[in-house]
């Protein structure tokens, strides 16, 4: 009797990113959300409100801080879409399509963010 061995899954790669992203989500996302809310509440004051132009400019003109923002966007989008991809299984949807959509979107979001950040870095400063 020959036993057919199952093939190795590539899941570890995504899982490692998912793990890092999940950790980021739990550690910093609540704080970031508070900032977004505060920005919304203080948005009348473009100069002294939260996330005012000066603040964001100083983030994106600093390559290190900009990289941190990119890292957060990258990990969070992989984390969130990975989880949603698995949730599709939980609703009985087993299709390669969700795989493409999920990781494709995550990659797209990350690339867009990276591109825009580079653009800003070059254009403004």
């Amino acid at each position: 009797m020959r036993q057919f061995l199952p093939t190795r899954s590539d899941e570890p790669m995504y899982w490692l990113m998912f793990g890092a992203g999940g950790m980021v989500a739990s550690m910093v996302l609540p704080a970031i959300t508070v900032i977004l809310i505060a920005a919304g509440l203080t948005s009348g004051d473009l100069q002294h409100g939260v996330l005012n132009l000066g603040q964001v400019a100083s983030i994106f003109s600093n390559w290190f801080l900009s990289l941190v923002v990119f890292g957060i966007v990258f990990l969070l989008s992989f984390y969130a879409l990975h989880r949603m991809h698995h949730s599709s299984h939980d609703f009985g949807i087993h299709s390669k399509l969700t795989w493409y959509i999920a990781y494709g979107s995550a990659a797209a979001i990350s690339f867009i963010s990276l591109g825009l950040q580079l653009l800003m870095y070059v254009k403004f400063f």
Partner: protein
Amino acid sequence: MSEVKSFRKPYNPPVNKMTWWLENSFYTKYMIREGTAVLALFAVLEIVFGIFMLALCDIGPIPTLSGIAPYAWYLQSFLGNPVIIALNVIVLVSQLYHAITWFALMPPFVRIFMNKNSTELLPRWIITASLYAAFAGATVVILGVAFLTV
């Protein structure tokens, strides 16, 4: 083995693949936990949208009102929109729920001994407690910087 004849007629209870998670509160909590990812994605999109609007701006040495119009719109009309604010409050709650469940999930990954000569494992509460401490630290630092530099 070949069955000559069998009296078996096993019954396979049907599985509803869409609604199974409503059958039991443990499952429901699990699905909510997984569902928080959708709101995390929403937050990411908000951020990237902000970056996009900022990139459209023209901030020369002296920013003009028209130059920063896209970002101003983002701040005032988007983030300032009461619907978005309400949504962000939901995002906050969901991410706190995510954080709590995430910290609860971490200890099973750690199986280390207290010290070289003991058979006692590092107790789980230490791992959970240190995660909460890190969370508190990170939150204080981020919010501190954000609010003190305005």
